[in-house]
């Protein structure tokens, strides 16, 4: 049987409470990703999408613990020691962060920041690594790469900094790239360019991509499959086109309706009443039951299980299947 590139099983992420207790921020998380595949993870703040990507990278903060299994090429990352993890991180998994300015070292030239990983991980000489850095900058379509590799981050624009961030992650030729809101801080025209660069690299290098974003439009443009998260739970998963055109979960439907667009006759936008609950204040039963327009009494009773509607399509909602019946 083919082992997928990444398989997450029963992942839960806990935070230590002040009274010694533990609270689950993320629970019952699972996903698989094959080589070269693209998965979009959608969620609002507090959905656990960033924690999930940090858990895969082994970068969870100290107060947070993960249980379950994160298998990369068959090896459980959660059971690995720091040294073993270090060689996976960077070499097999690359990460692109949201803030291109804070993610870069202001006191080091961008060329050296790209070269650093290759020197440490691959044993290249600095001279060779710096040459390679210029090639990488060229691949992320940085104009005048040789000159710009000797500049510091402050001299670059936001789009250029994000290209440097991509080049750093790319230097190790990772099998899996995790991009956490990579274009949120960028202008739309620059965003389009950066997304195209990511897409080209994925195609050329056969890299798998997890794109974390709150922007459904970005997900529609980039990802074949989509996973919708809310309050640390999977709500819905499937082919992006299916999820965004035929959503099964009321939360996904609500999100799609709330996308700003002109309403006829100066009408009002549709909203989801209320706000995303903090992880300490989740409602009983389904985590969306306090805001859901389709809720029934049973929604408050138990957390609904994750169900497979069709192959490749999953949903967490007791109303999802009832509604589809004629």
């Amino acid at each position, binding site marked *: 049987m083919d082992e997928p590139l990444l398989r997450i099983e029963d992942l839960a992420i806990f935070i230590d409470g002040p009274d010694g207790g533990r609270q689950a921020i993320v629970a019952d998380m699972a996903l698989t990703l094959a080589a070269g595949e693209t998965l979009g993870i959608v969620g609002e703040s507090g959905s656990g999408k960033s924690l999930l990507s940090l858990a895969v990278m082994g970068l969870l903060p100290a107060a947070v613990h993960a249980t379950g299994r994160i298998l990369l090429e068959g090896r459980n990352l959660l059971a690995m020691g720091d040294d073993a993890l270090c060689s996976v991180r960077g070499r097999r998994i690359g990460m692109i962060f949201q803030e291109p300015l804070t993610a870069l070292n202001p006191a080091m030239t961008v060329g050296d920041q790209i070269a650093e990983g290759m020197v440490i991980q691959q044993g290249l000489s600095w001279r060779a690594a710096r040459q390679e850095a210029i090639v990488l900058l060229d691949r992320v379509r940085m104009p005048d790469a040789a000159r710009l590799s000797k500049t510091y981050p402050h001299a670059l624009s936001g789009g250029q900094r994000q290209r440097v961030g991509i080049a750093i992650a790319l230097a190790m030729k990772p099998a899996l790239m995790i991009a956490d809101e990579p274009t949120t801080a960028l202008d*739309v*025209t620059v965003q389009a360019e950066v997304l*195209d660069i990511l897409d080209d690299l994925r195609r050329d290098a056969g890299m798998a991509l997890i794109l974390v974003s709150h922007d459904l439009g970005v997900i529609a*443009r980039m990802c074949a499959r989509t996973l919708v998260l809310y309050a640390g739970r999977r709500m819905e998963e499937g082919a992006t086109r299916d999820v965004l055109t035929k959503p099964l979960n009321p939360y996904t439907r609500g*999100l799609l309706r*709330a*996308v*700003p667009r002109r309403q006829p006759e100066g009408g009002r936008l549709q909203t989801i009443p209320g706000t995303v609950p903090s992880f300490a204040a989740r409602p009983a039963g389904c985590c969306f039951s306090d805001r859901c327009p389709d809720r029934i009494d049973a929604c408050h009773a138990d957390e609904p299980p994750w169900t497979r509607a069709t192959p490749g399509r999953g949903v967490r909602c007791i109303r999802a299947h009832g509604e589809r019946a004629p």
Partner: protein
Amino acid sequence: MIETPLLDIRDLSRDYAGGGPFTGRHVTRALDAVSMTVQRGTIHGIVGESGCGKSTLARLVMALDRPTSGRVLFEGEDLFALPARALKRRRRDFQMVFQDPFGSLDPRQTVGRIVAEPLHVLDGKPGRAECRDRVAAMLEAVGLSADHAARYPHAFSGGQRQRIAIARALITEPKLVVADEAVSALDLSVQAQVLNLLMDLRDRRGVTILFITHNLAVVDAVADRVGVMYRGRLVESGPAQAVFARPLHPYTRLLAEAEPDVTRFGRPDRAPLTVSTAIDLDVGCSFRNRCPLAVARCSTERPDLRVLRDGADMPDRQTACHRAEVLLETETAG
């Protein structure tokens, strides 16, 4: 007789001096001869990318900064010709909502104090009981409850904080609210609530809103009129619906095409235009190096805002493009 517009901006420019002791002085023109009017009771959108001068415009309209040249007329009164005391009195009529709902509220003050603070600058400052009543009424008007006044900002979510910021801006019953990226930091499900609130305030209280954002979809959803800015200049203006349905400037079209859309799957066929060459911004059109329609005239003659030659069926629309007629033809052909 034509009614005086609430806000009349005339030839407004702002230069910032840059450079240090080693690089030589140079001047950046953040805002370049922008003229526009904002009518009462409308939401007037300003869109553009970072560095286009939209926040500089907001600061000048709020009289937080002085222009290099040009005037801002508020109800026909030049804000920068007013004596300091008169300007201070005038400030109750225009208020601002900032982007960051976390950074713009003092964490050590109760919501009641935060919202009441603008009242303290008023002449004939209302008494304590009246202050409390007005704060309570205002909190309810923005969808919070009166007993929230005793709590501190940390107890509120991002959307609720932005409501507090809006309540603070509205407490002096201003005629104009400048909202600079006021919903950009909010989650999708909460963003729509705040946008609806802004439309309600316009319809029920007649508040005029200058709504500044980089997000086209948001402007399209709420704005009555829109101005598109590029590199310090206003390049297109008109009714929001018409501008986005049929752009008259290639930059507006570029923005609209680059905007991700939940109904467009996969990568668009057309590659986005990249900036190829540096250009001399002092002459000609500043968009010419990214423009697919640029001709020789664009690099010698600066396009001014104008009405189209056959613009009879396009009321109130203006574009700063020599090639707008060609743009319209290519659009109908393609």
